[in-house]
């Protein structure tokens, strides 16, 4: 570890102390809605994996290493319909390439972290964690506290992997669980995150544009491309509208506020 890193004071403390520290716990607490929200979705995934005929270790390891709900569901349905390994990997890549855009969105906020923490956070980042962070910090370039962010992504991954195992185990024992609106859980989670994310009329316009574009692409039979095409185009609506209705200074301020988050 380089001694001149700005965060070197924290690396002096023991690992266990940092993981149990108040900042980490604050992140864990903030992850609670995501952690709880992932549980029924991963439960449904675990059950589906058993139905499709995945070995238990494959279902659990997939949740731990890919950790992306939409892509895992896509993979499951493609395995069930007998598609090739290459086709599945391509579909997973397309669905998850949105993580590139999300990671771009936090790169400035975590630039000052030690590399090990950046990698850990990067591997465990999801749409929901991203949205919670951006909602809490007002989409600014404020520096994120590393241990709080690591706490925020630890709860969800444990819940995701644990519930995958639980769902796989329960698949044959509790068939009635399937009828509790679990298929709406993922949609409800994403809707909840979106409604917390939309903070002004520009964000609202972008969401409407993306919804229309993506629906149109799906209607045209291009459902795999729907997110990939809409994600880069729809933000242009917000960019253009913000440019004509707000001063350049206000935009720059929105972009460039760098505030060190205060210690509690």
């Amino acid at each position, binding site marked *: 570890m380089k001694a001149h890193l700005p965060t070197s004071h924290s690396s002096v403390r023991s690992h266990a102390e940092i993981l149990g520290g108040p900042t980490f716990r604050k992140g864990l607490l903030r992850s609670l809605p995501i952690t709880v929200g992932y549980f029924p979705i991963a439960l449904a995934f675990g059950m589906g994996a058993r139905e499709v005929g995945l070995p238990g270790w494959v279902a659990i390891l997939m949740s731990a290493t890919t950790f992306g709900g939409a892509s895992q569901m896509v993979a499951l349905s493609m395995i069930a319909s007998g598609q090739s390994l290459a086709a599945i990997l391509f579909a997973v890549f397309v669905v998850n390439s949105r993580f590139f855009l999300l990671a771009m969105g936090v790169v400035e906020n975590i630039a000052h972290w030690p590399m090990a923490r950046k990698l850990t956070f990067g591997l465990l980042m999801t749409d929901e964690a991203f949205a919670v962070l951006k909602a809490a910090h007002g989409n600014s370039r404020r520096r994120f506290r590393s241990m709080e962010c690591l706490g925020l992504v630890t709860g969800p991954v444990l819940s995701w992997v644990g519930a995958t195992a639980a769902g796989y185990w329960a698949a044959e024992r509790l068939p009635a669980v399937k009828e509790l609106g679990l298929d709406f859980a993922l949609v409800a989670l994403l809707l909840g995150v979106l409604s917390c994310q939309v903070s002004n009329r520009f964000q609202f316009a972008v969401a409407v544009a993306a919804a229309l574009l*993506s629906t149109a692409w799906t209607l045209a039979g291009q459902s795999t491309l729907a997110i990939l095409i809409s994600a880069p185009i729809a933000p242009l609506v917000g960019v253009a509208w913000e440019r004509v209705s707000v001063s350049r200074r206000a935009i720059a301020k929105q972009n*460039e506020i760098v505030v060190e988050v205060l210690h509690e």
Partner: protein
Amino acid sequence: MNSWTSTEWILLLAGMAVVTQVSRLMPVLVLGKKKLPMQFSQFVRFVPSAVLAAAIAPAILLHQGQLNMHVSNSFLLAAIPTLLVGYFSKNLLLSVAVGMIVVTLLRAY
């Protein structure tokens, strides 16, 4: 039921992890501390709203590939309270719970 071998399962797991984590890690590893241009920062602020809306809209508005704006569409009906509760309370768990309860009730009656 499929007939995949252990090797094929391992290839699937490794392949999925690689194509997913490359997208997650590339910006962190490649960009590092470089400053992004102002236009790009402004663009990126709008990306999450776009990605989320694009992921959800077809799941709510379409049914078996057809546009379904009818009251029989339980996802569409449940989406309204989910969005409103989320927007006004800014409470993720509450809005998810409301959405799932509404869907379950709509199916029961």
